[in-house]
């Protein structure tokens, strides 16, 4: 059985475990839908007061937010294993069991749980994305649909990279570092506004350190058919999501170093 089939088998097993408590999964899903709606209410309150900010309207914000939040919701389905890795695997020694199986540890962590309740967040994110796109009058074409898929794929790679990095640190700290939530949840908040609104240092952070801007701001400009007010070349806008994959690759270097440390220290 190849790795892809095995992941599907893990997911179906995980879904069956969760469906033993269907009420819980449904309530968590609805809860996620409602709480993430609040994100948009905050932006709505802001734009209701000021109308536009540097030429950006609430509709634009909705598209930025929808793209990045969709990426995160998709990532959240299959990364729980990395999220809870420190507390539930390193600290308890459960990672030993993962090493005892003839499969890559990362694959087994992806199979750790498929979080059904994330449908709530995904539904909200897609709703905001497409309503926003309709309001600002995005003319969808096959090219743009493809660009959207590519953008979201880059975003999934980036958020996965953040979670892999968070898990890698747990090899040293044996705790899951909650501080990474600043980058994931905080990142969604930051990436919903156009980079041009931010100070230069923060912009650079979102481009070069944790490249959230590359999986939201730049490609969304291409979808909106707007040039970058900061002057990035047009070819860069649809290319930028590749940075998400670079970030993921770099995270796996840290992950490998962490595993090497674990097998030589046993904790």
């Amino acid at each position: 059985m190849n790795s892809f089939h095995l992941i599907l088998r893990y997911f179906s097993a995980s879904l069956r475990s969760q469906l033993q408590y269907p009420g819980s999964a449904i309530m968590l899903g609805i809860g996620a839908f409602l709480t993430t709606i609040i994100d948009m209410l905050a932006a709505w309150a802001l734009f209701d007061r000021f109308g536009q900010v540097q030429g950006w309207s609430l509709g634009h914000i909705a598209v930025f937010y929808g793209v990045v939040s969709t990426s995160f919701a998709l990532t959240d389905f299959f990364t729980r294993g990395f999220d809870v890795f420190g507390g539930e695997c390193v600290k308890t020694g459960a990672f030993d069991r993962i090493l005892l199986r003839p499969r890559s540890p990362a694959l087994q962590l992806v199979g750790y749980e498929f979080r059904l309740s994330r449908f709530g967040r995904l539904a909200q994110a897609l709703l905001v994305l497409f309503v926003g796109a309709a309001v600002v009058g995005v003319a969808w074409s096959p090219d743009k649909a493809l660009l959207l898929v590519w953008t979201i794929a880059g975003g999934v790679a980036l958020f996965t990279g953040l979670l892999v990095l968070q898990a890698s640190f747990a090899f040293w700290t044996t705790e899951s570092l909650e501080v990474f939530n600043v980058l994931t949840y905080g990142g969604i908040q930051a990436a919903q506004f156009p980079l041009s609104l931010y100070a230069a240092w923060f912009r650079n952070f979102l481009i070069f350190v944790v490249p959230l801007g590359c999986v939201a701001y730049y490609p969304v400009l291409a979808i909106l058919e707007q040039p970058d007010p900061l002057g990035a070349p047009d070819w860069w806008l649809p290319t930028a999501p590749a940075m998400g994959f670079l970030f993921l690759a770099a995270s796996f270097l840290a992950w490998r170093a962490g595993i090497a440390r674990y097998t030589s220290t046993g904790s």
Partner: protein
Amino acid sequence: MPQILVEDLAKTYRVAERDPGLLGAVKGLVHRRHRTVQALRDVSFSLEAGELLGFIGPNGAGKSTTIKILSGILKPDAGTVLVNGRVPFTDRIAHVSKIGVVFGQRTQLWWDLPVSEGFDLLADIYRVEPARYRANRDELVALLRLERVLDQPVRQLSLGQRMRAEIAAALLHEPDILFLDEPTIGLDAPSKLAVREVVRRLNRERGVTVLLTTHDMHDIEALAQRVIVIGHGQVLADSPFETLRANVLAERRLVVDFAHEAPEIVMAGVEVRRRQGQTLELAFDPARTPTPNLIAALAAAHEVVDIHVGEPAIEEVIARFYDLHGAGEA
């Protein structure tokens, strides 16, 4: 070449120490003090295919470290380890597909899934060919009497049922070597007997090599032909259990019921271990005081109702052995 070869194994841990309390935690961030713990100093032994080896020692002696190194989870600092001709930690994936490991304290099944679905998933993880998997599963289910629990979620099983399911789970991929880390811990008497019976049959009938750690000396008595005692990270003894007993505590026990109040016994080389009403328990060395002579002397001097000859309990043998080597709890 032996199936498991361990030579001059050494392993040191660096344990971070920190002062208690919030201040200690903050100080720990800035400057960490480390204490080194020598888990293994110089461990060597080898195991042929089909052997059943008991691995005993006080807590902290190095048993778990050795098992972790043998199963490829941990890298030693020095020494050679070869299992089936492979170095476990460099060839992890090939290595772990040929071994089975059961940790008594941890589950490898999925808590909310029925046992049978956990088995199916493990078969996929280990890439067991479907027809072979079905044959193995059916055989193990019959051997471990799991028919009644197959459809139950793991969380609903009793500890004894779960341990039997764990052992089956560790064997679905037909490993040649089985590591059992305290497989009877916390089990009730019938479950312990069932686990021992299964381990014995796997070893005899399927030729599975078994390496077992335990604190329950009855496991050792019931199963192991050979015992390795480990203490302070070193092999203190490696022999059949009877040899260990003869070397450590060669004494016999004689329990005598007298017709009247138990008398005072003053005889060279005989020691009173227990006195209770009309009963005495005597300890003696059969090499110095032959058993028939002792019995004859007792029967001649006193009115004796019953006599029972025994050996010291295995726990006593081991406790004495640890004492001799200063290997109490580390």
